[in-house]
């Protein structure tokens, strides 16, 4: 149960699973509206909000499909409140139309995506197989959304709060990318409210013409590029104006919001690049290597878009000549690593075939990553 004292800012230690930590982070960020549809392995998020939001004066609505989750979230976001939804891979696919629309309408919202195995119905446990659809704009129109990839339960809570801040700052959907494994890892974290600084007023929100002095109607639209002339409120403009407007914003995000952490990369001969649950395994792989006198390092992107291409490229320039993308999938991250290295070093990959079991419950473990990369040392 969410205690009022925690909402007021009292920092407390709690033993939480990843899915719950996301929900705690959202509550601390002031999110009081949640629209969702059940899907494994993220149900704890919706169940948390169903329990907590009525007590906190908020609203939880279970709608009839993920297409509806994202549509209702879009509606709530037009009013200027902080709202979110969560889902897993098949549901993520169903939300793409809505995320594309929200990107155009420039509505701030947070979507927690707890990946499971794919394609199709795949598995109901974990994977990192949605990398492309998450980082490349999974819907139509080639858009971009910020993607934050936590690795630890503490980060779930902290990055959930950052997600709301960035959504409001750039007026864009922000994806919080977890997976079935991280969603269930349970550990002690500090539940702490984070302050990321001031934000512009939401002077675009709808609420009826009587809710503002001017009495002029407001229009929030996903058809903004169909205009003949540019309207002052930007709700309609010529198509090229519209496309440039969005891409200028994406460039601003790329210039300002790249986030990552590193572990022992300064003198590393071989750098593992990994995020989320496999990033967690790779930190131990680095320790295994270092204990044997092998100079391994870990580069862990936190924003998968914008991806830290330049920072990885700099490592290649500084002398790390071997890079290994470690991901619990068949492809994805390696392509960004290749783009980053730009031929300045070798790029290999370790994928889900090294899981410790052949069933859907198999995981990527530090020792198996190490025995796999030994061939490239």
């Amino acid at each position: 149960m969410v205690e009022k004292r925690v909402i007021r800012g009292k920092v407390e230690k709690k033993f939480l699973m990843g899915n719950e930590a996301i929900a705690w982070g959202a509550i601390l960020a002031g999110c009081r509206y949640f629209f969702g549809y059940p899907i494994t392995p993220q149900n704890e998020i919706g169940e948390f909000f169903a329990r907590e939001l009525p007590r906190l004066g908020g609203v939880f609505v279970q709608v009839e499909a993920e297409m509806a989750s994202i549509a209702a979230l879009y509606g709530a976001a037009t009013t200027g409140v902080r709202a979110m939804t969560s889902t897993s891979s098949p549901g993520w696919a169903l939300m793409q139309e809505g995320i594309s629309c929200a990107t155009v309408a420039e509505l701030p919202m947070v979507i927690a995506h707890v990946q499971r195995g794919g394609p199709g119905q795949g598995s109901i446990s974990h994977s990192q197989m949605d990398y492309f659809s998450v980082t490349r704009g999974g819907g139509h129109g080639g858009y971009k959304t910020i993607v934050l990839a936590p690795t630890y339960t503490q980060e779930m809570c902290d990055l959930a709060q950052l997600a709301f801040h960035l959504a409001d700052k750039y007026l864009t959907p922000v994806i919080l990318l977890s997976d079935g494994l991280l969603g269930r890892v349970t550990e002690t974290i500090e539940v702490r409210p984070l302050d990321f600084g001031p934000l512009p007023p939401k002077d675009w929100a709808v609420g009826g013409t009587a809710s503002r002095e001017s009495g002029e109607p407001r229009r929030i639209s996903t058809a903004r590029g169909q205009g003949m002339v540019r309207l002052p409120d930007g709700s309609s403009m010529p198509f090229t104006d519209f496309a440039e407007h969005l891409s200028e914003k994406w460039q601003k995000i790329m210039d300002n919001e790249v986030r990552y952490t590193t572990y022992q990369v300064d003198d590393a001969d071989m750098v593992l690049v990994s995020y989320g649950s496999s990033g967690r395994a790779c930190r131990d792989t680095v320790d295994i290597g270092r204990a044997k006198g092998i100079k391994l390092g870990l580069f862990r992107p936190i924003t998968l878009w914008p991806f830290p291409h330049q920072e990885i490229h700099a490592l290649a320039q500084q002398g790390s000549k071997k890079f290994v993308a470690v991901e619990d999938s068949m492809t994805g991250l390696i392509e960004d690593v290749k783009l980053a290295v730009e031929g300045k070093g070798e790029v290999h990959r370790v994928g889900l075939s090294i899981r410790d079991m052949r069933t859907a419950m198999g995981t990527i473990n530090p020792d198996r990553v190490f025995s796999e990369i030994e061939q490239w040392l």
Partner: protein
Amino acid sequence: MIKERIYGPTKSLVGLDVLGQMMICPGCYHGMARKVICEVLDEMDIAGKAIALPGIGCHSSLSWLMKVDSIIYAHGPAPTVATGVKRVLGDKAMVFTLQGDGDCAAIGAGYLVGAAARAEKITIFMLNNALYGTTGGQLAPTTLMGQWTTTTPYNRDPSSGYPLHVPELMATIKGVAYSARGACATPAQYRKTKKYVKMAFQKQIDMVGLSFVEILVTCPTHWRKTPAEAVKWVGKETIKEYPLGVFKNVDKIE
């Protein structure tokens, strides 16, 4: 000497878009349907807190014509977007959708039924012109048997199913407070439809449940008819398949 003003321009209806263009085809009754809604908004003094959710197609292009806040999303889910808006703003807003028959009853049928089942306190207006107008006149779920459309070039026969009666369907759903079908082809129909629209908004004000009004409109352009023929066709053909009236009206859902 004028003693009392009994008729004038509808305040919340702009009539022209931002470029000063009249965007409605000659003889199209979208304008009429908007007028009936706007008259009610003005008379009930709720235009200031109205939020319109035009569906995709002619509806979104015509969203400029109403002087109220509007939200445009994708093809079909307007009732669900309305859910999100209404759940946040509650009685501070009057939330209504303005959708075509294809938007509401084909691609949007699932959203419509979902919102109705949850008894969302929103109002749905479905404008039935018996085909897809914006895309060039294709088969809609409401196309009449024997009707020519570009995707029923040999006239509609049972291989493409049968006309869907949406207000009758809505009347069977417990979360629906009000369900009716009106038309605007004659002054008498217009006045009756205005009563339906008023009642539908009243159900939302009273927070009873979802209210639904279908309005039969014309599409002379794609019916390949003159405006006068189109109005006659509504009176003769459309109304035969889609009877006017109130199908459900409750003050409380138990």
